């Protein structure tokens, strides 16, 4: 998020050029075993990472650009692979176990690539007998005359089967994106009919007028709403609730810092609680599902909600410790009246039914993404949402997630992800250390980058640790994925960390140093708590 008014800043211009350079960089470096497609994938990855960090273009634009470059450069139908065929021929047998092969077929490590099945090759070690200009004579007992060997090992199809372009553009209709679409439409309708505000009014009333309980109430309500709605929209709504309270305080009263910080903190934490709470969850769930570790709506809540509650209570205690209440009671004057028009009532029914079906997924077994089409269809059928409301949906967020999922697919298919984790002895690190490191890295990165981008950049590594098997049996893909998702949402030390932070900071009530102080403590305690849950709780509730 940038606060500038117009034009590119010098940082953004630097990022623009670095990103474009990053796209071609892999072709300028000797990268050993990385396939040609892997080099393209690495170029796209570097460009995307740089663009996401420096933001010369908006982050959703980078996501769309990723998909475009993938269909152009990596897909089976793109110009790069449209007519490509792997050059292979059968070796010429000179004597028994002695073969003549084209010189381009020999790899530096004295192996040749034998085609085992279309698009797949296996390296077979050979012994060089004689080099003969265009040809090499080799000895090998493993070759046979009916096996094709790759005659050009540098070819772009070596170790790569291009996906159809529909796999990349299809990410926009990935079940998890559809789940979010359902959530977005519910949220849009809730805002339109003020359901979020009215719920806030009802839910806050039991918390009375004592400041410490009002803060607790504000945090619980914010978290509960942001578990189903966008964190940002929830924070913006809650800011309109707290501004009148803050206006009742003396100008120098420090309690207002706590009040104003409670909203973004609770909004950020609340997003963890459900799959649709915040976009990083989507990136993680999409990647896990791809590898057979799908997690139901119910299971996600069972996994995440206890951590959310613990974090909220801790943050509440922390805010009260730093910024103790200065007055005995507050006048929480929430005005408004429940909308009882037929359309609004239609919304309440659809909202209730959808959420009920989501959280009971384990009981009826209907996938949450299918349930998500209930609000999608019902809200427009009942004219509860109009055409302009649908245009007003945060499509940028859907594209941001789709691009993230697409980047992950490309990194996996091109072999890039496995190549990136090679060269480091992950097994020596141990599973618990790995969880801790991923937690710290995710919180650290996500403080400066978009949460979704952080999840996008880290998830391919988690997946390749799983597929390569370097971590051994102790490695748990599902739990490591959850660690990434949760950690990405616990970064809130800076105004740029999350949009709710940016909104709270923009009110001018809080100072950056207060946000940083509280945010850093929450990040550290959060990582410790993640580690504890990953060791003791999550293994009990996942399989």
């Amino acid at each position, binding site marked *: 998020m940038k606060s500038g008014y117009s034009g590119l800043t010098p940082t953004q211009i630097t990022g623009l050029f670095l990103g474009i350079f990053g796209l071609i960089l892999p072709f300028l470096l000797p990268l050993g075993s990385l396939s040609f497609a892997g080099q393209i994938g690495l170029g796209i990855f570097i460009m995307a990472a740089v663009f996401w960090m420096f933001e010369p273009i908006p982050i959703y634009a980078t996501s769309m650009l990723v998909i475009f470059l993938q269909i152009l450069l990596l897909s089976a139908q793109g110009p790069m692979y449209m007519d490509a065929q792997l050059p292979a021929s059968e070796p010429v047998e000179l004597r028994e176990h002695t073969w003549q092969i084209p010189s381009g077929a020999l790899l530096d490590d004295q192996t040749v690539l034998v085609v085992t099945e279309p698009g797949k090759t296996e390296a077979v070690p050979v012994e060089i007998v004689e080099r003969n200009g265009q040809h090499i004579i080799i000895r090998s007992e493993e070759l046979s005359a009916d096996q094709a060997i790759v005659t050009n090992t540098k070819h772009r199809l070596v170790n790569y089967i291009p996906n159809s372009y529909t796999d990349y553009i299809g990410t926009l209709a990935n079940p998890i994106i559809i789940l979010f679409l359902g959530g977005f439409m519910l949220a849009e309708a809730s*805002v339109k009919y003020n359901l*979020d505000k009215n719920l806030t009014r009802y839910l806050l009333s039991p918390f009375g007028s004592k400041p410490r309980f009002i803060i607790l109430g504000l945090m619980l309500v914010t978290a509960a709403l942001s578990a189903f709605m966008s964190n940002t*929209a929830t924070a*913006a709504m809650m800011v309109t609730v707290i*501004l009148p309270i803050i206006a009742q305080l003396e100008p120098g009263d420090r309690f207002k810092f706590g009040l104003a910080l409670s909203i973004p903190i609770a909004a950020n934490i609340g997003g963890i609680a459900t799959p649709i709470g915040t976009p990083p969850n989507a990136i993680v769930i999409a990647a896990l599902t791809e590898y057979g570790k799908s997690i139901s709506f119910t299971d996600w809540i069972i996994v995440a909600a206890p951590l959310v509650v613990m974090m909220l209570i801790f943050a509440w205690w922390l805010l009260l410790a730093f910024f103790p209440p200065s007055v005995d009671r507050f006048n929480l004057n929430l005005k408004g009246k429940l909308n009882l028009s037929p359309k609004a009532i239609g919304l309440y029914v659809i909202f209730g039914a959808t959420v009920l079906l989501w959280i009971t997924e384990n009981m009826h077994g209907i996938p949450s993404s299918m349930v998500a089409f209930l609000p999608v269809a019902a809200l427009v059928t009942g004219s509860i949402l109009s055409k302009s409301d649908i245009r007003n949906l945060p499509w940028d967020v859907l594209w941001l997630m789709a691009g993230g999922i697409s980047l992950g697919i490309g990194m996996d298919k091109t072999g890039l992800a496995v190549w990136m984790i090679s060269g480091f002895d992950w097994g020596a690190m141990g599973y618990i250390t790995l969880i801790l490191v991923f937690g710290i890295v995710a919180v650290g990165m996500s403080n400066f980058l978009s949460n979704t981008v952080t999840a996008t950049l880290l998830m391919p590594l988690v997946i390749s640790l799983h597929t390569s098997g370097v971590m051994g049996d102790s490695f748990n893909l599902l739990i490591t994925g959850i660690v990434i998702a949760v950690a990405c949402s616990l970064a809130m030390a800076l105004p740029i960390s999350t*949009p709710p932070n940016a*909104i709270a900071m923009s*009110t001018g009530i809080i100072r950056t140093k207060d946000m940083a102080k509280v945010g850093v403590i929450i990040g550290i305690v959060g990582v410790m708590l993640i580690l504890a849950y990953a060791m003791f709780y999550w293994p009990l509730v996942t399989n």
Partner: protein
Amino acid sequence: MERSDIYILCIEDEQEVLDAVVRDLEKLEEQFPVETSTSAEEARDVIEKLLDDGKKIGLILCDHILPGDNGVELLIELHKNDRTHTSRKVLLTGQAGLDDTVRALNEARLHHYISKPWSREELLEVSVKLLTDFVIEEEENLLPYMSTLDAERISENIRTRHNVSDE
């Protein structure tokens, strides 16, 4: 506070009054640069120059009695001009007769009428309200304006308009 490209323009022929207006707007000036002119003629030049530089005119505070064309005439002209149509327009005067005031309301869609003498609170309150209207209508990114303008209305707008979304 970063300067925005949204300007406040004050048009007033008496230097002392002009100084008083500018002094009262001091709190806003950090973010919304204030330009002044002493006649309709000069105001047109200032507006032309600012718009050509890619700046925006968010708020125009105009006296009625001016040398040459009067304030109401100028505001009507600016209302009809596409480039200043969305600018918020305030007539700040003690001498406009009923006819002129009615004309300004009907033909210039005057946003506010402040009668002299004004109080600093009134002037600031009106300016904040009108600039909030202007940025909500014209600006994509509202966050930079929250601390100076009406934070509650801007938050409400972020809630409904999704111009800041989860990322």
